[in-house]
């Protein structure tokens, strides 16, 4: 039974939900079982996946980022304007954004602030900046991002290749690298990490900077898919990213996160939208059905966790 470690068991529900949903979509619309079909199904998955990983990195250190949606929107606006017209200024702005995230981590840590409130304030800041930059929808995606996001690798669609790549990179950084252990330790037991001689400020700053990096990538890839941007383009991402992490088996506290699970969770949420439209559910109830799917998956997880708890007691 060494194959079924607790870590892998946690992945079981998200993977099963995704498989079940994918099966249902294939059953409802067999034409999706093709290169083009899969490409269309998972088209928007890449930015959502990246934003979910970013949220996961924040949740790993016991914080929560309520500004994810407005931040990704702001990055999208920068990508569609400065990055296209003056790439150097564009990259400087984006680098500044990542630095701002690191600074947030430092402030939150040093002043012992609640992350929910600080990121809530930041959501106004990013939202305001985005509106100032692009008061009306517009801009153009830089050609190379557009090329990257619409490229067609052989056999497997771009969205799936990218998702696997993101999962692998995040898995190695968070679960396998030495610094990943320290970062998860900050979420698990901050004091013991400190006593072991690590700087918790630096660790939190790094976690936030990494999250900023992934969120910047989310905004850039989003513009690559949509070709233009507006200030409200990604507002849903705040809630989607939190839901994706939770669906993937992550916890709000304790540094218990799963990068592969988060990617699977994000894919499940992307697919849920397609599934609902194939079911011909009235558009009125589409959002509600997404809420219901979230509840069902969490109920499944509860059932499995209980079984797991019973198993360890034996």
């Amino acid at each position, binding site marked *: 039974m060494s194959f079924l470690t607790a870590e892998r068991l946690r992945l079981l529900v998200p993977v099963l939900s995704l498989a079940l949903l994918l099966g249902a979509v294939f059953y409802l619309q067999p034409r999706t079982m093709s290169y083009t079909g899969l490409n269309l199904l998972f088209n928007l998955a890449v930015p959502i996946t990246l934003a979910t990983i970013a949220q996961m990195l924040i949740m790993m250190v016991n914080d929560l980022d309520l500004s994810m949606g407005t931040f990704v929107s702001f990055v999208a606006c920068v990508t569609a304007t400065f990055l296209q017209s003056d790439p150097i200024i564009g990259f400087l702005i984006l680098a500044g954004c990542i630095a701002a995230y690191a600074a947030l981590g430092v*402030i939150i840590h040093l002043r012992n*602030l609640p992350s929910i409130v600080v990121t*809530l304030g930041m959501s106004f800041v990013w*939202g305001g900046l985005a509106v100032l930059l692009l008061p009306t929808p517009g801009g153009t995606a830089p050609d190379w991002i557009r090329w990257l996001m619409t490229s067609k690798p052989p056999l497997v669609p771009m969205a799936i290749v990218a998702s696997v790549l993101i999962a692998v990179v995040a898995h190695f950084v968070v679960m396998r690298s030495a610094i990943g252990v320290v970062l998860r330790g900050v979420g698990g037991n901050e004091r013991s990490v400190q006593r072991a001689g690590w700087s918790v400020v630096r660790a939190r700053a790094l976690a936030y900077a990494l999250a900023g990096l992934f969120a910047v990538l989310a905004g850039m890839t989003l513009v690559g898919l949509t070709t233009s941007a507006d200030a409200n383009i990604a507002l849903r991402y705040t809630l989607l990213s939190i839901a994706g992490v939770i669906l993937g088996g992550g916890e709000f506290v304790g540094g218990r996160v799963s990068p592969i699970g988060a990617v699977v969770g994000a894919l499940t949420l992307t697919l849920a939208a397609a599934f609902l439209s194939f079911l011909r559910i009235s558009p*009125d109830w589409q959002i509600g059905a997404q*809420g219901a799917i979230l509840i069902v998956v969490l109920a499944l997880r509860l059932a499995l966790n209980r079984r797991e708890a019973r198993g360890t007691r034996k």
Partner: protein
Amino acid sequence: MRAILAKPWVWSFFAAGGVWLVTIMFTGGASTLGLSQAALTFAAFSIIVGLGQMFVITLGPGNVDLSIPATMTLAGTAALKVMDTSDGMVLAGIAVALAVGITIGVFNYALIKLLRIPPIIATLSSSFIVQSAAIWYNRGIRIKPPDVLSQFATASTFGVPNVAIVALVISALAWVILEKGIYGRWVSAIGQNMRAARLAGVPVDGTRFATYVLCAVLAALAGFLLSCFSGGAALNMGAEYLLTSIAVVVIGGTAVAGGFANVPGIWGASLFLFLVVSMLNTYGASAGVRMLFTGVIIIGVVVAASRKPAA
């Protein structure tokens, strides 16, 4: 005097007063009455939802109600449709709004308790369902509120807007419950240490249940008043109150980690947030600049109010 200055909520009133003065000075005193009345009116809605959110946040880390906007929308929509502009149906409309609030509150806590979902995700999921229900029920038709109600909601008594009076009555009740009633003690006790509260015999489940229901009912009431005030329910009318409800609680000096709440701060913070926006408006700032400043101010207040962590 020192005792008053030590209260966590005085700063929000100082800030609100300061912004009020600056705005009045800019306009040369021309709009003093209008500005004050508008501030009281619009703050009233944030105060009502903020009070509910305050009780929920006081329950401790992780407790926050994200279903407030959806609840406001559904309650306003359903009540207006039931009343169907008829003055005789006002009581029925209020009853419907309250019933919507109670139902959502019960549903929220059922998810939290039975499925052991973190409150953020539970209220988020239920808000999706509630929002869909509102879309389905509303069908994009804008029904006007009964004349009696729209007159009541937009009029003033002795110069004070009626909605502000409603908010004042609710705040007074909330203050009594929080400071003098056993329920308020229980909420604070749970927020300070849930395990200790349970061991001390506090009915933890019952109190948390009542708190989520209370929050949803207050949100429903605010939605009802807002739809009467603005002449009809709109699907996005609750949207801005998600962030506002949390922001007024925090700026008002309630501990975000839970355990310590205060009612007056909600008033100071609500007035402050509205006045900042109207001050920026009088200076002719664009929407982007207004948002930027609101965010910087929220962060600035939180950083200034924070205490250095114990070494």
